[in-house]
């Protein structure tokens, strides 16, 4: 479980996150949604310890990471998996080396066990016989899946994803969403997904945090969104005709 308590963060005097509090539940897919520029990415970077909030606390199972020493933060990061928007695979390494990388640095396994683990994780994300390809040789969807395999290779307790299905076709995007949800339930991870994709919200939003202008504007579940009496949320979620029709039919 990750708990945000009154988080504030500014850049050059401009307040990006304002007194934000929320709980990301364990074993659930927690979605952060909001318009571009609402502060989603800054919040995710605060959660990852890449930005330090000026005020408030971020509790990972009760441990506040805001003032954690770099040594302790490093130890915590071994329990964190991250899927970046573009995958952030290392260009100079092939797929196998990319997934192997965290194991080489942070595990005490022998080489054969490491390779077994890499192959298991690649198989888990439905990738086989791609070990020796380089990131430049695979599609966007495959890159995302390799990034997920790399993120789960150390059996993390916390999984973070920054717009995991941006730039993907709708079919692949749903595959990625479902994969993330399956992995979350399977490993009992606390998964936090930053997205503005409404399909994702409706598919996998166990818990949803809607941010507007750096503040928590609404929180709830995907089921609650349909009937939420919240104008900003309704404007954001039901901006497309398709979702307006779904909402109408639902009612």
């Amino acid at each position, binding site marked *: 479980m990750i708990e945000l308590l009154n988080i504030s963060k500014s850049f050059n005097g401009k307040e990006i996150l304002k007194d934000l509090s929320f709980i990301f539940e364990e074993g659930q897919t927690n979605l952060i949604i909001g318009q571009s520029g609402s502060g989603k990415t800054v919040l995710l970077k605060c959660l990852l310890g890449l930005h330090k909030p000026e005020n408030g606390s971020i509790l990972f199972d009760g441990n506040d990471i805001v003032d954690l020493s770099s040594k302790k*933060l*490093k130890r915590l990061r*071994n329990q964190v998996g991250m899927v*970046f928007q*573009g995958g*952030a695979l290392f260009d100079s390494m092939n797929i196998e080396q990319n997934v192997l990388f965290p194991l*080489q*640095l*942070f595990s005490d396994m022998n080489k054969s066990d490491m390779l077994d683990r890499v192959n298991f994780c690649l198989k888990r994300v439905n990738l086989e016989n791609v070990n020796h390809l380089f990131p430049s040789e695979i599609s966007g969807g495959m890159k995302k899946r390799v990034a997920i395999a790399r993120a789960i290779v150390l059996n993390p307790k916390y999984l973070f994803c920054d717009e995991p299905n941006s730039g993907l076709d709708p079919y692949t995007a749903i595959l990625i969403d479902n994969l993330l949800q399956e992995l979350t339930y399977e490993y009992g991870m606390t998964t936090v997904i930053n997205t503005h994709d409404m399909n994702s919200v409706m598919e996998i939003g166990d818990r949803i945090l809607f941010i507007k202008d750096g503040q928590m504007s609404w929180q709830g579940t995907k089921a609650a969104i349909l009937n939420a009496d919240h104008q900003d949320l309704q404007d954001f979620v039901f901006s497309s005709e398709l979702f307006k029709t779904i909402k109408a039919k639902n009612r």
Partner: protein
Amino acid sequence: MSLITSLGRYVLFISAVFSKPERRSVMYRLILKEISELGLKSVLFVIFVSLFVGAVVSLQTAANMEGGWMPRYLIGYATRDAIILEFSPTIISLLLAGKIGSNIASSIGTMRVTEQIDALEVMGVNPVTYLVRPKIFALMFFNPLLICMSMFVGVLGGLLAVIFSGESTAAEFIAGIQYDFIPFKTLYALIKTTLFAFVIATISSYHGYYTDGGALEVGKSSTKAVVYSSVVIIVCNYLLTQLLLRS
């Protein structure tokens, strides 16, 4: 950003380079990889440039000795000193600042803008130690070897040029190479080279690491890396010469 701020950030960057690596075995492997990427891939370039510049230096020296009152072995003597004292350590280092410096800055800069550096950080890897230290060690180890090779090939180029042009005989040229040879001059050249290797690796990495933006900024960082490395090499060259040869 002011010069003092940049300098301060550069010093902090360098101090981060020397923090403890995650795994020593991984670090050794990375150093070998960088030697191959940055060093071995520069060998042919250095040989090519050194051979022709050595030839030109000897021919120019010969051309300036028209009249016949100066002994012909001085062609070898002048070529040797020009190559060992200045051409190989300084000019080759400047060329390597262009070739290797832009490579380092653009590769690290690309990693920055594609979030690969953030990925390292999130995994708990110190990106500065992981990315920059192997480059510094590889260049400080391999560049002196490259420069020794450049000295040899440069002098060889000079020898071949005077033989083919008939300006002097091989025996005269070799006598010139051996005349009044002071081993400290070679040591001076190698000290310069090692320092220049450090300058190229750190300044280029620094500019790559602090790239902010997209592809355009990666290009700008690459240009800055080459320009600043070259400027610092030229200034250090003057200071080291004053310090080691004149004091």
